Each structure stands twice: as C-alpha cells, then as structure tokens.
C-alpha cells in the first residue's frame, strides 16, 4: 500500500526528531572521546568540533602514569568481582525459597523483605551498624552492606515464578532432586536471561559505587576508582608529576585533557559488557515490571 503524503511528512518529522535526539545523546560522549585524543591547547581554546585536533595519546600515557589510578582500578576490580558473586549468591538464596509455594511463612517473609523498600533506618543507623561490626575501612564495607538489592531479588523471584514451569520443579523433586539440586540443575540453567541482567545491574552498581566508599573508607589504599576519579575530575588534586618547572605549564594543560582520557578509561570496562547483555534488557525489565 502506498503511503499518503501526510504519512510521509510524518515520517520525515519523526526521523528528524530522532536524529536530533541521537545527536543530543551521542555528542557529549563523542566529544569526550575526541578530546581525549587531542592536544590540550585545541581542547581548551574550543577548536574541537567533529574531529580530534593534533591527534596524540599523551593524555592516556598520563592516565597510566598515575599510581593512584592503578590502585583504584585494582580495588574496583576486586570489589566488583567479589561483590557481584556475593550479590548473586544471596539474591538467588533469597529469591528461590520465596518463589516456592511450599516455603513456610512465605507471605510474612515476603512482606518483611519488601517492606525494606518502603522504609529504612536511614544513613546514620546503617552506618553505626557497619561501624559496630568493625568492618569500616575494609574490603567488606564495600561488599556486605549492599550484598542484596531487594528490587533485583523480587525481579528474580518473579522470574522463577512466571517463567519456569512449576511442573518441571515438581518432576525434579519426584525424580529425587533435593531443593538444592532442583535449584542448581533445573531452575538456574533456565534463568540465564535474568541472571545476565541482574549480574550486569550488580556489576554496574559496584563499578560505579561511590557512596559506600566515602562513608566507610578512610584508608587511601582501599579507595575505589570512583573516589580517585572524584579527586582528579572534581577536586583537581592531581599532583603535577616530576619536579622540573619548565614542563609545568604543559603538564597543567595536559592535566585538563587527561580528564577526558580518564573518563574513557573508567567507563569502558562496563560498556564492553553492555552489548552482550543488552538483548536481555527488555525481557529482564518486563519481568520486573510485573509486580510481586
């Protein structure tokens, strides 16, 4: 069927708006990329528009010369790895029993758990709990207080209830599977989409975590990447490396474009995983949208 003139105009308008949106979302990101490869004078004097000016990788060299950044990177990798494993373990251990109709006191327990989404003690009482447990200024402060996210847990619980046939679990138990075996051999292998999405959510949360670090950590050796980023990007606390005064001006200038490189270096790891998980987004989020 041939499109009417009105419909074609409508199409053009929609495409035009979409291109505008695309530019608005992408240009700031694109600008960071080209600025990170340009020479400082060009960036600071506003010569940059669509292509890098004076292409070089000095900003990246400077990023990798900062020992603080390496320490932050290593710490964040540890927190993200360990934290995500703990998250997945606890989330599954919580979601699976609550998804089962034969769980004793299921309604009460689900209520107690969901209620924490509506009301909580607040920043200070939680801080005092962590302090009294004696885990401030340790790796545990970064992974234990946020070991479970109730929203993610409910998403997983809903997935177990709606997307895995109950008969399958029954059949497994008739065949002599214990609950642990049912979980490991039947439920989890069928839950790959939700596991992928929730792993991404948790990993992103740990990678980007800033709040726990400023509250619980005082020891600089434990600082995650985000704290180091804040010091360099927002507080300009970059110590000009080396002592010779002649290169000082260049170093300060380079320090400005180095911020762009740092943004790239800090964000790339998360964005690398993104295409692999992206196809599961809609499904994962839709299951979560079905209220529990």
């Amino acid at each position: 069927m041939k499109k009417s003139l009105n419909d074609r105009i409508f199409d053009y308008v929609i495409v035009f708006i979409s291109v505008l949106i695309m530019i608005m979302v992408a240009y700031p990101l694109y600008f960071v990329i080209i600025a990170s490869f340009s020479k400082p004078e060009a960036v600071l004097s506003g010569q940059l528009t669509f292509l890098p000016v004076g292409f070089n990788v000095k900003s990246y060299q400077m990023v990798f010369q900062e020992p603080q950044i390496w320490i932050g990177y290593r710490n964040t990798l540890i927190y993200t790895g360990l934290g995500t494993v703990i998250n997945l373990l606890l989330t599954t251990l919580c979601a699976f029993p609550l998804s089962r109709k034969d769980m004793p006191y299921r309604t009460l327990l689900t209520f107690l758990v969901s209620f924490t989404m509506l009301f909580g003690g607040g920043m200070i009482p939680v801080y005092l709990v962590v302090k009294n447990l004696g885990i401030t200024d340790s790796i545990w402060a970064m992974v234990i207080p946020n070991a479970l996210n109730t929203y993610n847990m409910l998403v997983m619980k809903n997935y177990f209830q709606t997307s895995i046939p109950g008969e399958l679990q029954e059949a497994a138990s008739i065949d002599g599977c214990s609950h642990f075996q049912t979980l490991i051999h039947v439920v989890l292998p069928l839950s790959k989409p939700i596991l992928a999405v929730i792993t991404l959510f948790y990993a992103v949360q740990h990678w980007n975590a800033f709040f726990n670090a400023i509250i619980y950590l005082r020891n600089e050796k434990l600082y995650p990447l985000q704290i180091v980023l804040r010091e360099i990007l927002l507080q300009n606390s970059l110590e000009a490396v080396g002592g010779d005064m002649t290169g000082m001006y260049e170093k300060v200038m380079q320090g400005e474009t180095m911020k762009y490189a740092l943004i790239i270096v800090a964000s790339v790891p998360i964005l690398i995983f993104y295409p692999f998980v992206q196809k599961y987004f809609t499904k994962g989020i839709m299951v979560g949208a079905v209220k529990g």
Partner: protein
Amino acid sequence: MKKSFRKRFFSKWQLIVMFLIPFIWYIVFCYVPMYGIQLAFRNYNPRLGYLGSPWVGLRYFKQFFSSYYNIDIIWNTVSISLYSIIFGFPIPILLAIILNELPGVHFKKVLQNLTYVPHFISVVVLCGMLYLFLSPQYGVLNTFLNFLGFESIGFLESNKYFKAVYVLSDIWQESGWNSVIYIAALAGIDPELYEAAKIDGAGRLKRIIHVSLPGIAPTIVTLLILRIGQVMTIGFEKAYLLQNNLNIRSSEIISTLVYKQGILQGSYGYATAVGLFNSVINLALIILTNRICKKYFEISLW
C-alpha cells in the same frame, strides 16, 4: 506415610537453610537500623549504647525546624524533585512513542541502544563531564555561547542554574533507560487497534493520541505514582558532587545535610532525626498515592 512426611520436612528444611543467610542480612542491615532510629530521640553515647543513652524527646526535630536555612533545604529537596517530575517524567514517554513510530527497524535499534548508554555512566563521571563542559573558561558550552556572542555563564558557580543543571543532566542520563518500560508496553498493544483506527481514517498523529497513549496509560499512571511517592528521595551522590560554596544555597538537600551532620560532624542523633523525617514523609506519600490510585484508577502496588 511417615517417611514421606519426614522427607517433606527435610526438603522444607533445605529451603529454610537457603533463606537463612539472606534473612540474617535483612535483620542486620535493614531491621537493626530501624531499631537504631531511636537515636533520633536520644543523646547518643556509644559507651551507654542505644538504650542507655539519655532520652531527649523531640529536641533534634525542634532544632531542625527552627532554622530558616533548613526550610530552604527542604524546599531544595522538594523542588528539584518536582522539576524532575514536571520536565523529566514525560520525556521517556515521548521517546518511546517516537521510537515506536520510527520507520526502519535498524535505526530504531541503534537509537534505542544509544539512549541507554548514559545510564551506565557513573555519577562521578557524569559530574566530571558537567564540570568540564560547563567550565566558564574552557567549557565547550561556554565556548559555543561566546561564539554566538553571549557572555560565559558559570553554570555550576551560581545558585541560579544549579537545579536546571541537575534536572537536565538527569534527563540526558536516564530518559533512554526509563523509556524501556513504555516501549515494552507499546509493543503489547494489539495491532488490530491501529488497523481499525486507520480504516476509520485516523492519521498517524491521531493514532498516537487515540490508540498508543490510552494503551500505555496504566503504565504511565503506575510509574507516576511510584515517582510521586519518592518526592523526598533524590540522589545524594550527584547533589553532593556538584556542590560548592557558590551554589550551596540551592544545592544543599536533606541527604547531603544528613551526611555532613552525621558522618562528618558526628551528630548522630540530629542526623538520624532529619533522616527519619525524610523517610516518614516518603512512606506517607507512597501509602497515600497508592490508596488514591487504588480508589480512582484501580491500580495499586500492593
């Protein structure tokens, strides 16, 4: 019979064991802090413990409300939230509709996935980008303003622009991600409805107004309620990171006050009281909106 009973008990026992670790976690990190709320009414002394510290009643609440500065803080919290709702809430809906109307599957996919990307950028990086782009000397936005013949504006160095920067950057970061749910809801609309409207002579715009929008109305209402129930909750991290001495009068919000008073100054009782005020308002709002929606829209969260 007896054996099967034992077997059943055994299997339940396994479920209970599984639940044990998460349960302990909930007790320690959610319910013990709720018990700790009593600090809002006590002059806390670590050596005396929660129950041993002297009771001071509503002293901290009186202290909080007696300062005009704090009224400003409440207003900052509420107004940033309201601006986010007024300007930020409709954008994901429009975005979803535009994506839905786009001819060509390929471009649609690209645009959709692109708009998700900012959601994954950390708050620290976002704030770093804002400082870089908005810098009065070197920032790309000010360079552009100069090019157009305007003076440079210190967006982050004044009380005037802080809320706009906060809300607009939030729209940039989260609109794509927030549109996912509407896109899914639009995909669930029966294509026959569009066909019927077409036969009735409705153009594209009319089909959006009479088919698409009513189709996602329940989703819109649910999310709006949820959003209104969180009026007092705005991100601590972003406000804290964008704060400086020049914009503090419009950037100080309840959570940054709680952090400064509680964690940095050690006034645990006062900070707990302010936090409690915040949580109670939130809880009340969500219960209220839920009740209203149950009554008028027959949509409720529980």
